[in-house]
């Protein structure tokens, strides 16, 4: 599957992306069900953002995964990797048959991303590391006079990690306007609501206080996603954080807004029900 025709209107692009996102969600469910374990909640909340990135926003070449001028994408919330693997397979980085090997012995698709997987730029899975890596990659781009962008997708639970804020301070210091951090704000983490586990407060304001520009967007509205990223390109001299309002488990009714589905595999009936709902979803 190729990138959406960027000559089309925003509305047309969004309609195409919505359709692709349904297939991404289907693959996420298939993959986790066959693996017998994995993290559906956060993969589904990030499905629309990842689809917009991989099928519209990112300047990448699946035939040449290490193309030096490519945009970089770091899935800092590494446990959501089924969404990444679905997008990579659909863009043609590797054959879709690999999706059935998720979490199995010697699979190229590990339980958390490793850089050996075609299209994966960095090993993640231990939370809080992605922004530092993104900062390094963005600095590399500046030093070598490349104009690629670096996108880092973080979870709202993940920003509990102190390292995120060390990186946030540094990104601002270096005025890295080619770095865009997207926070998948699904309001839930493994053991409950972020508000209870560790309140994150107003995330956009926090990034602004660290010297960033920050926007909010609806992480399930393709038009909003595309327009907000366009807006980010216009910001010069500082990094941009985009706080995406999302729903954990989005697209599968019994998973939506349930922290219990952070890291649980559906049983056979739940699996069938999930696929049915995703296929029948009207956008």
């Amino acid at each position, binding site marked *: 599957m190729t990138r959406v025709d960027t000559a089309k209107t925003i509305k047309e692009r969004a309609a195409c992306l919505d359709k692709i996102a349904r297939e991404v969600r289907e693959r996420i469910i298939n993959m986790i069900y066959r*693996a017998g374990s994995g993290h559906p909640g956060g993969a589904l909340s990030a499905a629309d953002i990842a689809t917009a990135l991989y099928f519209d926003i990112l300047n990448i070449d699946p035939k040449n995964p290490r193309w030096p001028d490519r945009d970089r994408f770091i899935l800092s919330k590494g446990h959501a990797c089924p969404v990444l693997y679905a997008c990579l397979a659909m863009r043609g980085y590797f054959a879709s048959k690999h999706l059935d090997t998720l979490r199995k*012995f*010697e699979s190229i*698709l590990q339980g958390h991303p490793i850089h050996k997987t075609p299209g994966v730029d960095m*090993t993640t899975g231990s939370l809080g590391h992605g922004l530092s890596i993104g900062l390094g990659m963005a600095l590399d781009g500046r030093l070598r006079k490349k104009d690629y962008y670096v996108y880092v997708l973080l979870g709202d639970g993940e920003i*509990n990690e*102190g390292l995120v804020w060390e990186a946030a301070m540094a990104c601002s210091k270096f005025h890295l306007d080619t770095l865009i951090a997207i926070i998948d704000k699904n309001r839930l*983490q493994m*053991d409950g609501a972020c508000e209870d586990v560790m309140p994150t407060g107003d995330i956009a304001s926090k990034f602004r206080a660290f010297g960033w520009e920050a926007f909010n967007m609806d992480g399930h509205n393709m038009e909003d996603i595309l327009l907000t990223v366009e807006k980010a390109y216009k910001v010069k001299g500082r990094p941009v954080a985009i706080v995406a309002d999302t729903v954990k488990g989005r697209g599968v009714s019994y998973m939506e807004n349930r922290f219990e589905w952070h890291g649980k595999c559906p049983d056979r009936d739940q699996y069938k029900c999930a696929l049915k709902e995703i296929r029948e979803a009207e956008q």
Partner: protein
Amino acid sequence: MKFDNESMREVFGKTLVELGEKHDALIVMDADLNTSTRTVLFKKRFPDRFVQCGIAEGNMFGVAGGLSYAGFVPFPVTFAAFASRKALDVIFMNICCPKLNVKIPGCYAGVTAGEGGPSHNSAEDIAIMRSLPHMRVIDPGDNNELRSAMNEMMAYDGPVYFRVPKVIPPLLMEEMQAFRWAKGIVIREGTDVSLIGTGIMTSICVKAAEFLEAEGIHAEVIHMPSIKPIDEDLIVKTAKKTGRIVTVENGSVYGGFGSAVAEVLVEKYPVKLDAVGIKDSTFGSAPIRDLLIHHKLTPKDVAERAKNILHAKNVQ
């Protein structure tokens, strides 16, 4: 071999509750993993003594150090991978250097995060924790021993790291033997070669010894739950008896359990030693059983290594 009917993490969670009933000063801390690590049981029973720190391990261990100064006995709980690799400097500076009374479980230790892959499995924890000042290190072999070790560590005023694998373990000993610091247990007497295991790997040694027995080789099996301090006398005693040692761990032999045994032997009674574990590698995503097979950590592999070392020449 009989298996227990409960996973080690469940026993860990229940034992925390039992200890909580006895020790008012015991505090459990969490980095957003309480359903996985089963500290959720403690959270329900003692909500006032449960501190949710969020996904911020460095901070959690620092707070643990602070709490223990006030006389509390904190159990900051996360996966072995994150305790050993992510929070290391805080543990060194603010728990070990001042010798504070903090008990650190390494949940999902070794290969037992399985499908989670390299980020969540931990091959390095024994080597890392063993190197820290004042830190004691335990890798319990079964549920009874885990429970016993957790009771015993309450009597030690200092930092302890103990592994809590995510497995339903075999019952290593028919009769409950209490955990004691620096005490190994002879599980099976033998004269030809000594298999020394730690944690859940001792059960692998027991099976390996059965394979060897079928070939007329009498292997001694020793279980060594207390890695630091270690039972130097027992190591030297078995070395004198068999002259051949095979150590078995699910972790890196570089600095790990094999190294700990080797250090004793080199100093006190040099004999041939072969350390079974992994080298320069990670535990990738797969069911635990597949990982053990791939990394040659099965009873057959251990038996094979024992036979090889039997045929090796003496040290001097």
